[in-house]
Structure formats: structure tokens, C-alpha cells
């Protein structure tokens, strides 16, 4: 089953930031990474990816630079200190929200 896009849409920025927190990367690799981690249940469209990059860059959470690749020039993104702070806050909020949602809808533990 594919993970429903609507639910995850609000988390795109945080997901991208968490990927960039590991290393600098470019659009397609970031998306491939997300697809691999989620067992192909989540693949962002170019539009979603680009919109998110644009938003994060204008907020100062990421910066970009061009680098020559094998076939073409690639635009790499790098997380900033502000971005790292934002990610930490997001993780904290997500942890708290998850606990709340689990109380109603149940987590894996409840399912068992």
C-alpha cells in the first residue's frame, strides 16, 4: 500500500531537512533516498520537491550551490544551522503529536 500523500504533505519540509542533515545532496538523490527508506511507499513529485526547496531556502533553512555531475550540472542543497535548529524543534513536536495521535488511533503496540 502506498502511503497517502495528503497526510505526509505537511511533513515534506521536515523529511527533506532530515535527509540533508546526513549530507549535502541534490534533488533526485534526495527523492531516491526517501523512496528507498520508505520501501517505495513515498516518492515526492518534482513539483513538491521544488516547492519545498524554494520554501526552505527562502526561510534560510537550506542553501544551494551548483556542482558538475557525470551527465549534467547539479544543484546541491545543504542544511544551515537554522535548518538544524528547525529540524530539532520539528522532531520534538512530532514526538509529542505522535503520542497524542497514538492515544486515539493506536500505534503498533496497540495493534498487537
Amino acid at each position, binding site marked *: 500500500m502506498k502511503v497517502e500523500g495528503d497526510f505526509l504533505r505537511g511533513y515534506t519540509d521536515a523529511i527533506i531537512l532530515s535527509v540533508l542533515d546526513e549530507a549535502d545532496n*541534490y*534533488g*533526485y*538523490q534526495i*527523492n*531516491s533516498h526517501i523512496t528507498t527508506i520508505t520501501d517505495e511507499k513515498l*516518492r515526492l*513529485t*518534482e*513539483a*513538491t*520537491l*521544488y*516547492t519545498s526547496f524554494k520554501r526552505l531556502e527562502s526561510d534560510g533553512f537550506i542553501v544551494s550551490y551548483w556542482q558538475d*555531475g557525470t*551527465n*549534467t*550540472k*547539479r*544543484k546541491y542543497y545543504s542544511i544551515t544551522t537554522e535548518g538544524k535548529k528547525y529540524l530539532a524543534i520539528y522532531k520534538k513536536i512530532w514526538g509529542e503529536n505522535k503520542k497524542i495521535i497514538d492515544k486515539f488511533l493506536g500505534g503498533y503496540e496497540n495493534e498487537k
Partner: protein
Amino acid sequence: MKMKNKIRKYVEYIFRKKDIENKEEVIEEITANIFDRYLDLFEKYQDEEKAYVEAIKHVGDFSEFENETDDYKHQYKPDWTNLGMVIALVLGVSAVISMFFSSILAIILIILSITLYVSASNYLYHNAIYEFNNNKDVIKQDDALYKIIAPLKRLFVLWNLGISYLIAGLLTSIIQTIVTVNDPDAFTSIGQVISVYLLVFIIIFIILYAVLKKLYFHIVDRINDSLSSKINVNVAVKNYNFKPINLQKIFESIYKGLNNRFMPLIIAIIVNIAIETLSFERISFQSTYLSEIIYFSDLTGTIFTVVLGLRITLVLAGVMSLIFNKNVLKFITIIFGAALSIFVYISFDNKMSYYAVHGYKIGVATDGFFVFVAVTCFIYLVLLIGFKIISLFKKQ
């Protein structure tokens, strides 16, 4: 590479109407991402078309980057003011065209164009205030203001062209009359009249441009002051502002135009036509330049032969510039063209009295044309050298 181009074309198509910053960079980035995905899919399917379609399927929806003004323009059905503004523009264009045939018609068309614009914009302005004060409808107010500002720049340019042309004609006639009264022999050449006319036209155009530009901002400020919601007017101003004049870009485009590989050949042909026309008018009535070489056996004949040789060389140099497109060749051709024009003009000028005694017609129009060619060659040369010097300084 073929597939990458295909993907790039698709991305360019998606972004064709989008008004975003660094558009080229965005297209480059998205093309690179889709191409990477295509390569992965191609490895999987081993089918170019299937991989392409699958890669494109994941592009998603970029509609939120749609230029809002495009939709906004069509939110309301057009009324008479739309038609009025269009007619005002058509009248402005017609005035510019008709000024070459009838000054009276041009004046009437300009007056009609101005009247139509003023009445339509007056209606729109009051409509905007009404919509804001009574209906609190900011979008409708914006729409009305947009319609006032939108055609104004084009209209100002058209009116300026027409008015400058008419005033220049009037002033040149006055100058010509004053000069001729003091010295009846002065100011008889068509070349002189055209030069004065152009100079006056340019001066008036620049003055009017400055005045109209000030008026444009005055109109915008006036609208801004009259309304409570100023931010909406700023949108109109932002979109329809006068573009700042980029001198460097203008210089570069003029230089590119002048430095065209066809230019030396065109100049060579024009110089040849000018010399031929001059000889046709002056040497003997309705005879060609070539026949004069045969006719004259003395020094005049020798000069004609030399000049003919130089004329052929000039055309050859023009052809060489066209083929090899070398700057050195272009410079040589232009310098040669200018020098030849001046040489022929001076030598013919010396002969003028001699032939005039024999009752040959001296064409005033030919004079003007010849002066025009020589002056053009000279200006062209000065511009080319000027641009070359500027570019050398820039490199340093």
C-alpha cells in the same frame, strides 16, 4: 542528449507562462532531476519512450507558480473601457503611420486617441473609487486601476513619436525660412534639411519623453494618494513601471547590429550605388559611369578607371568580410568605403562647375543621398571604434 533536450523542452513548456525568479536555473535543476529519473527508469525498462513517460508522470503540478496576473486579468467580462483603450492604441498607431502622408490627419488621430484615453481612464478611476468605497471590493478596484495604467506607456510612446514628428516639421520649416532669408544660397540641399529635421526630432522626442515620464509617475502618485488601499496601486506600478535604461545592454545590441558580417557588403553596395547615381546625374545626362571611362581619354578618364577599380575592390572586401567574418576585414572595408566616398565626392565637386557650365543637371537629391552615405559610413566607423575601445577598457 536527445532525450535530455526532449525533457528540457517539456519543462520549458510547463514554465512558459510562469513569472518566477531565476527561471533558467529552475528549468535546469528540474530537467536534471527528471533526466536522472529517466536514466534509472531506462535501465529498468530498456525502453526510451516508456522510461520518458514514466519520468514525466512524476513531475507533478506546478500550478501554484502560475502568474497570478494572467488569471486576474480575465476575472471580469470586458466593458466599453476595454474597447476604448484598444481603439486609443489603434488610433495612436494610425497617427504614427499617417504622419508620413498627412500631418492634418495625424494631428486629428492623436487628438482622438488622447480624448478616448482620458475619458476611458476618467471613468475607470471613478469606478475604482466607487468599488472601494461602496462595495469594499479591492479586486475590482485593482482591475480598474490596472486598465488605466496598462496601455499608458505604449500610448505615450506613440503620442510622443507623432507630436515630435509634427513639431520637428514645423520648426525645420521656420529654421529654413529664417536661414534662407539671410542667405538665399544656404540650406538648399536635401541632405542639410534632413539632418536638421532629424536633429530637431531627436531633441523634441527626448524632451517630451522626459516630460511624459514625469507625467506617468504623477498619474500613478495621484491615483495612489486618492485611495485608501495604496498597496493595490503599487501592484500596478510594479508591473507597469518604466524599465530602467540599461546603457550597457543598449551599447552591446547596437555593437552587435553594426558588427554584423553582412554590414561591410551592404555598405560597399550602398557606396557603389551612391557613386553610380552621382555620375548618372552629373557627368552626362543619362549615361553610366562605365561609358565615361571610354569617353574620357584624359586625366578624368584615368581617375574614373582608378575609382572603378577601388569600387570593385570595396565590393570584394565586403564579400571577404561576409565569408571570413573577421573584425580586421570589417574595419578595413568600412574605412575604405568611407575614404572612397569622400574621395569621389570631392573629385566630383571640383568638376561640378565645369559640367554645370555645360548645362548638365545637378541633382540636389543626389547630393543629399551622397552626403547621407558618407555621413553614415563615418558614424558607423566612429561607433565601431568607440565600441572596440570600450570593450578593451572593460577587459582590463
